[in-house]
Structures are given as structure tokens and as C-alpha cells.
């Protein structure tokens, strides 16, 4: 599926504005769960998801708001979930770290690093068993490749030529820890999958057209039965690991490093190209922004006025049926 640059821009801007609104509202202490915001990383979510078909599946980890929204997840249900309301996508039982929207193929997200990788492979296994030409894309960060679950999943996906996109967003840090104590210098992330026999590609995660181009190659590869594909995208998380604030002053990274990446904002780059190519005018882009913000306002208002689940619901749905 080929998305236009404008559609990609709109997708990324939605994510950005939602995350910014969460930041604005967080101090009111009505969103009482951890939030792992993806500001700065929008192009990977939007670029990959725009290239998938609506019937393809996506899974993610703790930093999933962007993947959820880019795949078409319901905004109101996501915000209500973060507010702990019964109207939330997980009925208030999961919060930000357990988003789900089966209507658009967002099969689930869980915060144990790399845990959803084998589960995503399992959904691709099901597709192959049933002869469906569906792909599952699973998003994870640079630390996920350190887990056994990742390597085992890569191996199994290769053994069965499963239609899986392994999408790694390298934002240089695992919470406060840079790469150096975690992985040997100069080895690279995609090399791990390549060493196990997987087709891989690496790109700039802040240039949405590059994300789309690499995704198209990967998706065609997987959908044509050639097996799984590993995509590595370098990007940067603007805010703290968990929470609404900046933390460039606590010592694990520098303000200067942040500003270098801020200048490479994926939305800013896309916006510049839309204007310079004559595709959109400034006024038209402002109007898009306003429209998105209207939708976001409505979602937050609905979430704030929605009811909480009743306390007896805590004991329900332990078992199905």
C-alpha cells in the first residue's frame, strides 16, 4: 500500500500531537499509569504501518502509542485506557502498556522487553498455517536484540520462512544506559539477524520516505513467501524513558545531543518537503493541525467524563467464559 507524503505527515502529526497532549495533561494526575512517549520516533511507526495492508498485524512493546495510532487504532479508546476508564481499549485493566485494537490488527503490546516478538511470530505462523498472505510487524527497541527471546524468534521465523517484519528502533538508549555496556562496539544491530541468516536493511528512522522505501522491500519479501525481514532504524527519543518530562540534564545524555536530534525532527523534515515541493501550503498544514487537535480534544474530553470500571470488575475476565 503506497501512502502519500501528506498521509504520512498526517499520521506522524497525529502521534506527535497526542503525545504532546498527554504531556500537557499528565500533571493533573488523572492519567495514573506509566507512559512511554514516542516523540521523535514517529516516522518509523507511520512509515511502516502506512506500507502494511489493513489486514496485516502489528505488535509492540511499552512505547506503543505511535504504533497503535499509525496502524489505525481507536484514539478515544486509547486515551480512555490511559485515564483508567471502562471505555478504554482494555477496559481499564491494561493502561498505556497494554493497548490492543483487534479491528485494525493491533494484536497487543506488553512491556516485558522482547516478549511480544515471539508472540508476533506466532501470529505469522497462524497466517502461514491457514495459507493467508498476511504479515505481522513487531516493533521493538535496541535492547530487545540482547534477549534470548529475540534470537530464538529470529531462528524460528527463518526455519519456517514466516512473514514477519522485525522492526528495530534504535534510539541509542535503554532507559539511561547507552549501547556501550550492553553490546560490543561497532557490531551493529541488523548484523545479529543477518548473522542468523535473515534479510536485513538499515535506514534513517527520521526520514519517513526512507522508512517507507525499506518497508516496501521488506514487506514484498515477506509477503511473497521469502521469509522474515529485519529492519533497523536509527532514531531518537525526545522525552524521558517513562513520563512527560525532558531529562537531558540528569547526566546520561546531553542537551547538545538532544538538540542535534531535535533538528532532525521527522515531522519537521516531512513538513519542509511538503511545502518546498508545493504539495501543501502553510495554511493547509495549519488547518490539518487544527483538525487533528479537534479530534484529540474530543478524545480527551470523552476520556475525562467517561466512567471508571466498577471495583468488582477487577475479579472478572480472569478466565474466558
Amino acid at each position: 500500500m503506497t501512502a502519500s507524503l501528506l498521509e504520512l505527515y498526517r499520521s506522524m502529526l497525529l502521534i506527535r500531537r497526542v503525545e504532546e497532549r498527554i504531556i500537557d495533561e499528565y500533571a493533573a494526575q488523572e492519567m495514573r499509569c506509566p507512559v512511554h512517549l514516542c516523540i521523535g520516533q514517529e516516522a518509523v511507526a507511520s512509515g511502516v504501518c502506512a506500507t502494511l495492508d489493513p489486514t496485516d498485524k502489528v505488535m509492540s512493546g511499552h512505547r506503543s502509542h505511535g504504533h497503535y495510532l499509525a496502524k489505525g487504532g481507536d484514539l478515544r479508546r486509547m486515551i480512555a485506557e490511559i485515564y483508567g476508564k471502562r471505555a478504554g481499549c482494555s477496559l481499564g485493566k491494561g493502561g498505556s502498556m497494554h493497548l490492543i485494537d483487534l479491528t485494525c490488527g493491533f494484536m497487543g503490546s506488553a512491556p516485558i522487553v522482547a516478549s511480544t516478538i515471539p508472540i508476533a511470530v506466532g501470529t505469522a505462523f497462524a497466517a502461514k498455517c491457514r495459507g493467508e498472505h498476511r504479515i505481522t510487524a513487531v516493533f521493538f527497541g535496541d535492547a530487545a536484540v540482547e534477549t534470548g527471546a529475540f534470537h530464538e524468534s529470529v531462528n524460528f521465523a527463518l526455519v519456517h520462512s514466516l512473514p514477519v517484519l522485525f522492526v528495530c528502533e534504535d534510539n541509542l538508549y535503554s532507559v539511561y544506559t547507552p549501547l556501550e555496556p550492553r553490546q560490543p562496539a561497532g557490531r551493529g544491530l541488523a548484523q545479529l539477524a543477518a548473522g542468523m541468516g535473515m534479510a536485513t536493511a538499515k535506514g534513517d528512522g527520521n526520514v519517513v520516505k526512507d522508512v517507507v522505501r525499506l518497508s516496501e522491500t521488506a514487506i514484498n519479501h515477506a509477503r511473497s513467501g521469502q521469509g522474515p525481514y529485519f529492519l533497523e532504524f536509527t532514531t531518537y527519543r525526545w522525552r524521558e524513558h517513562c513520563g512527560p518530562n525532558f531529562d537531558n540534564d540528569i547526566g546520561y545524555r546531553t542537551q547538545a545531543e538532544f538538540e542535534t536530534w531535535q533538528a532532525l525532527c521527522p515531522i519537521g523534515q516531512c513538513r519542509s518537503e511538503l511545502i518546498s515541493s508545493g504539495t501543501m501550503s502553510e495554511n493547509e498544514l495549519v488547518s490539518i493541525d487544527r483538525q487533528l487537535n479537534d479530534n484529540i480534544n474530543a478524545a480527551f474530553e470523552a476520556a475525562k467524563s467517561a466512567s471508571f470500571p466498577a471495583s468488582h470488575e477487577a475479579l472478572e475476565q480472569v478466565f474466558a467464559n
Partner: protein
Amino acid sequence: MIGLGTPDPKGVFGSTVGLADKYGTERVLDMPVSENALSGVVLGSAIDGMRPVLTHQRVDFSLVSFEQIINQAAKWHYMYGGQATAPLVIRMIVGRGWGQGPQHSQSLQSIFAHIPGLKVVMPTTPADAKGLLLSAIFDDNPVIILEHRWLYNIEGPVPEGDHRTPIGVPRVVRPGKDITIVGTSYMTIEALRAAAMLVDLGIEAEVIDLRTINPLDHEPIIESVRKTSHLIVADTSWRNCGVAGEIVARVAEDAFHYLKSAPQRVTLPDAPVPTSHALTDEFYPRAIDIAHLAGDMMGISTSGLSDNSAENGMLDVPDNSFRGPF
């Protein structure tokens, strides 16, 4: 169906023999030694509409996949507010005998049963081995089935067709009026042997096969204790924080005033299972131990009872037909 050695010639102690030939290797699969990820793969296929069965040749091999079982599978239905189901089955075999040792002998039902969202069953009879497996497969929840290695050798009637044993229902396998003995898995067999011994002392034991560890309807046990006033629970695993303690706690809560003696537990001692048969002979409790305990509880002398188990051969095998090593 998937598991290490699932389609191989030994067929997991015969339990999967012929399945790959009949249903094809696309459906009956071997797997890499990646129990953690494969538990996730099985979960992923389950949330995507399949009904997978994963087999571990020993309970001990499942430990590396506890994250997927406990964090993910058990909670998948709940943490997404009921939006998704995880109808998977994991068969695990409890090893025993021929020097299996600490890492080929564990029986971890109480750990799984402690986790909300997991169903845990332990069939004793061949009929229940089929019936509980079918119920597990068609249950929309993750179900852990612990199958005991020594029960693969026993024979019994098995109904044809779609025979299902309901999950959650214990069964009175031997009615009696004097003492209730609840058993799990192979210990139900030892409980029945003990009941036969106790007849000579004029004690009629009621033996209940638990069959399901969680979720369990305790009422048949409570009803039995109201009748007999004495309770022994015999479990295949360790004493501390085990299933026997849970049964005793429920009886204490719901039938305290019916008890004429303190409930007792027959379990493994709190140590890893050793390897040398010189050590395991005394490690695993037997029917004679249950019978002595019953006599003590009822104030009846058991000095006349003899332990005839060793007459049947060595104690580290289920019967003389077993030649080892596996």
C-alpha cells in the same frame, strides 16, 4: 501440536506416535530448543485463532518459558479487558525414577495454580488423560496439563469419541466413610493402594482424585470430610507452599468443626529430588506411609501392615517392565 521430539520415533513416551504421519508435519511439528520463544509462538498462534498444543518432555524444561506462560499467556485475556483469548495447551511430563534427578523430576503444579488465569490439570486415569486433554484443547484459556511419567504404564477403560472430563471437578474414585484421602496424579494410585491396605484394619477410606488443581470446585472434598472427619492430602510435589496446603486450608475454612484430627499432608520432603536410588527409595512416600498416617490419625494400630511394594521389584521404576534409561 509442537514440541521437542513430538514427531520423533519415540513419540513422547508413545503419546504422539503416528500423529505426524496421520496429520502431516505441517501440523505436528518438532521445534528448536527454544522453549521460551516457542511458548510465545504458541501463544501468538492461539490469540490468532488456533488451538495449539505444546509438549515438554519434562516439566523442568518449561522453566525457561515461565515469562511467556505467567506474564503473557495467563494474563492475556484479563489485561486486554477480555478482548482476546489465549486457548493454548501445554502438556508437561513429571519425571520420576531411574535416577531422573533434580532437573528431570519436578512437579510444579502449585506454581502454575498460584497464577490467576492459568488452568492446571493432572489426569490420573487413562480416561481422564484423554478427557482432560480434550477439555483443555477446547477450553478458551491457557491450560497446563501435568502428565506423570509413571502413569503412562497404567491401563484402564477409555471411552471412544469426543469424551471430555470437565475441568474443575474432583472425582471420588473409592467411596468410604472413615477417612478422606485426596490424591493428585500418581499419588491417587498410592492412595488407592493404601485404601486397600486399610481394609484389613477395618478402615474404609474415601479416595478422591483431584484431577484439576485450578480452578477447583472444593465442595466434593468438603462434603467428604463432613462425612469422614479426617483428611489426608497426598501430592506429587514438595510440602512447602504446595497444593496439599491449599486443600487443607480450604477444608479448615469450610469444614473446621467436622474435623476430628488435624489434616495431614503426604508430600515430598522439601529438597530437590536426588538421583541415586538409595536416596530416592525413602524420598518418595508410598502407600504404606499413607496407611500408617491414617492409622495414627484414627488411633488404630498399623503394626500389622506390611509394605509389599519392594516385592514387585526396585522402587525406582513403576514396574518390572521398565528397563531404563528414560
